[in-house]
């Protein structure tokens, strides 16, 4: 027996719930979970891991909203509010693009999957690091803005290297998640 009601009402609640929880998850990954990078004693955060995961599991729109909002909230809460609008754009569009790539490639075929991973890594990095470079350049000069590029690329590397296995592990350990993409 199928539920006869209009599914769209429940879908709205589900979408709000999914975006809200994933936004919170992205914020936590950005602010709290930090991986020390030994040589430089610097930290990278796991924002891109969360965005990769969201884009692959929940699709482009959720990734746009949760990735952008989550990282922007992390900036606001962490005291870097001046970055929040830029971050929203950089990470949001990054999530959207990664999500779109995986949506068109599908997740069944292995070869396509690897291709999608490579393309989304390159495009994601270009969008994210590019946005920060351009806006940073406008604010305080391209010289200083260029110094942030390596760190941002490293973040994206972490995003792919951790985000993809995370997607696989969660999908295996919690199968119902397969129905959450839209």
């Amino acid at each position, binding site marked *: 027996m199928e539920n006869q009601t209009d599914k769209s009402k429940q879908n709205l609640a589900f979408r709000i719930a999914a975006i809200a929880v994933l936004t*919170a998850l992205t914020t936590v990954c950005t602010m709290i979970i930090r991986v020390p990078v030994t040589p430089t004693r610097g930290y990278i955060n796991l924002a891109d891991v969360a965005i990769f995961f969201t884009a692959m599991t929940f699709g482009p729109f959720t990734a746009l909203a949760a990735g952008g909002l989550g990282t922007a909230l992390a900036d606001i809460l962490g005291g870097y509010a001046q970055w929040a609008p830029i971050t929203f754009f950089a990470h949001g569009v990054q999530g959207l693009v990664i999500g779109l790539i995986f949506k068109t490639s599908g997740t069944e075929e292995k070869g396509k999957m690897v291709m999608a991973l490579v393309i989304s890594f390159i495009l994601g990095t270009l969008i994210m690091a590019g946005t920060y470079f351009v806006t940073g350049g406008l604010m305080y000069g391209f010289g200083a803005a260029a110094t942030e590029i390596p760190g941002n690329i490293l973040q994206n590397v972490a995003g792919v290297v951790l985000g993809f296995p995370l997607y696989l592990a*969660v999908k295996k350990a919690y199968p119902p*998640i397969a129905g959450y993409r839209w």
Partner: protein
Amino acid sequence: MIDTLYRDAPSALHRYDSRLKLFLLPLLLIIFFLPLGTAAVCAYTLTFILLTMAVLGFREVLMPLKAIFPLLILITILTPFFHRAGEPLLETGGIVLLTDEGAAETLVYIARFSGISLLFFLFFRTTAMENILLGLSWYRLPYNMTLVISIALRYIPHLAGLYGQIKAAHALRCGINDELPCRRKRGRIGGLFPILVSLVIQSVKTIPTLTMALELKGIGRSNPRSRCRRLESPANIRMQLFFTLVLLVLMLSALVVFLTN
């Protein structure tokens, strides 16, 4: 563990209506990017420093600057290298280290970036998150968007706490006679991964329950919503409106002067 920037205080900026603040924020921001010249940008930033000092006190000025000072140092070191036009000011062995234009450019960048940082700091320091959201919905931001943000804010401390619990739980997953303490064996990232998986599974599992909670709160109905709580206009809203207008006129006239020159 997670705290917003907002601190309650009885200052004039705290009492300033959040809708007016939301209106002024982008306008004040744009001014930083107008090619006004070094002196103007520095003076503009100085007003923000003075404003922060006057309203919140001296220590509050240092807080946002402390967060950006590594970047400020980078700007000071790197900008002169990229601006070699103009009269040389510093020279060693035929290599120009600093020109007057380079110095001016550096000053503009430092002033602009500190100013923007201070502007945002002031906004978030003196405006409570819920007033920002109420202000945004006054500007017709759809209810579902503010809802997403407020639910996310409710879940951030929850998930942060969950992360701590999960981390503790995973630390206990090794026995007395393990060959090596398991955390070292797998390295830092390897040790983090299981924690991350548990955290993500737990987060994802809350989505269906949250969906139910939302449905039972009536999210999805087609009738128009009512709103119990609105932004209360402060007592001196007329004064604030007047002040905002004056500020607008000042900005516009500055723009006109700049364009006609």
